[in-house]
């Protein structure tokens, strides 16, 4: 993969990731944000968050199964866009939906399970976004950084639960996203097992054994 192609692909990825924003802008300008624009914005940004979380989680298995290592260079981009949309999603709730009614916030964050899990998913993504720079990776060390960024699994699972609990009757969409997430997590288990089988079982060095 040449640098030129990577740049071109990045431009395409940016545009694809911004599609929900373009859609909202277009619908806003054409007065087509449905009868309930705030609900539509909330749903659109929430769904974009979930989709981008799943795309981000798909990159590592896709890379390992296909051997296309350059895929990894898109993971930060999609991950940060997932964070971008969850910020929009939360801001829509706080600013447009309940319009900074702090009492309502306190009620929602203590009494409404689907809002609580959604909020936790959002909180857990903040440190991931903050430590997304190359500088942070160097500073933290790859091991710690990787460990911290395992939080994305928790956020994704909570995101699915949040969606599931919010729905009134038709669970098709959260079930679909949930299934995709399950497949992506199972793929990791498969990759882990595969790598264990390839590697010879770890033994203490011969010299150490001899010294016993």
């Amino acid at each position, binding site marked *: 993969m040449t640098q030129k192609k990577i740049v071109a692909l990045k431009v395409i990825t940016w545009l694809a990731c911004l599609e929900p924003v373009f859609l909202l802008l277009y619908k806003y300008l054409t007065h087509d944000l449905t009868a*309930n624009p705030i609900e539509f914005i909330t749903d659109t940004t929430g769904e974009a968050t979930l989709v981008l979380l799943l795309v981000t989680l798909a990159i590592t298995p896709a890379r390992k199964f296909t051997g296309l290592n350059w895929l990894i260079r898109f993971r930060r981009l999609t991950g940060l866009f997932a964070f971008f949309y969850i910020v929009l999603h939360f801001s829509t709730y706080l600013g447009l939906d*309940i319009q900074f009614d702090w009492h309502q916030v306190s009620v929602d964050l203590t009494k409404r399970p689907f809002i609580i899990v959604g909020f936790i998913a959002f909180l857990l993504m903040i440190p991931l976004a903050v430590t997304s720079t190359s500088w942070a990776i160097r500073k933290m060390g790859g091991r710690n950084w990787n460990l911290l960024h395992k939080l994305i699994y928790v956020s994704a699972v909570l995101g699915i639960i949040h969606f599931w609990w919010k729905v009134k009757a038709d669970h098709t969409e959260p079930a679909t996203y949930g299934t995709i997430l399950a497949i992506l997590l199972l793929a990791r288990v498969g990759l882990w097992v595969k790598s264990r089988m390839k590697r010879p079982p770890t033994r203490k060095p011969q010299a150490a054994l001899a010294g016993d």
Partner: protein
Amino acid sequence: MLIKKSPEVPYSEITKKTDYLSRRSFLTAAGIAGAGLAASKVLPEMLSPELAFASTKLNFKKSDLSTHGEDITPEKDTTTYNNFYEFGTDKDDPSKNAGKFRTSPWSVSIEGLCDKPQKLDVDSVVKLSSNGLEERVYRMRCVEGWSMIIPWIGIPLSAVIKAAQPKPKAKYVAFETIWDPKQMPGQQRQVLDWPYVEGLRMDEAMNQLTILAVGMYGESLPNQDGAPIRLVVPWKYGFKGIKSIVKIKFVEKEPPTTWNRMAPEEYGFYSNVNPNVDHPRWSQATERRIGEFRRRKTLMFNGYADFVASMYNGMDLKKYY
């Protein structure tokens, strides 16, 4: 399935006389205007009488029971933002999928514990009211936390009940939506327990605010809003307003209702609009009026307490939600 095919009705009985007349006059006018125009405009109308019915203008009187002083929700919103799961669960699914739904011929079976059970087409149901059609502008509060102001056209349900002469044992009225998965794509999936059923206590059904609507905004009901005939109970959450009704049955015991069966802890039989009793998953204290930016406070019994509160005297509304 208990739903039987309605008996074949002669075509002349289905299509309204006014439709015939308007079609004839239109044919004449179109003949003058040009054969090409006549073919393109008139043929589709002649081939599908139900489409002609869908745009029927209605004659009605304005009712004193209308809600005043609030802006009527634009028709575009009430016809594109619908919860009618029979046509799909997204808000815009009904307007996309209900276009070809056949609402004529239609038969409503009025049955159960009554002296005069009958099967009627929609026109005959309307004729049961001596007042003719009336326009009732009502608030409509959805259990999801949004609301609209809709100018319904219909008749009091009480007129239908009186005509059927329920027996003293009849304490409740049960309603049923048509079950027709071929026409209703949403029914092909078990999202809800089809067919949709609803119910009212007899006094609620007899209340002067309770109507069977056959139209809105001066015309017959669009399919996505529950054509050809639906229930409107303005002090209850919108889902109580069962759509596309084929059966009205008088019963002794509280009848099952679809959303209550689906999630009994979330949707009660009564489902009166009540800002003090939250849905387990969200607050019911406020609502977003479609077209408005700020939320407004939800009113007890959706603002119709003067008409209905006495029916619930002594009842614990937290228990009977």
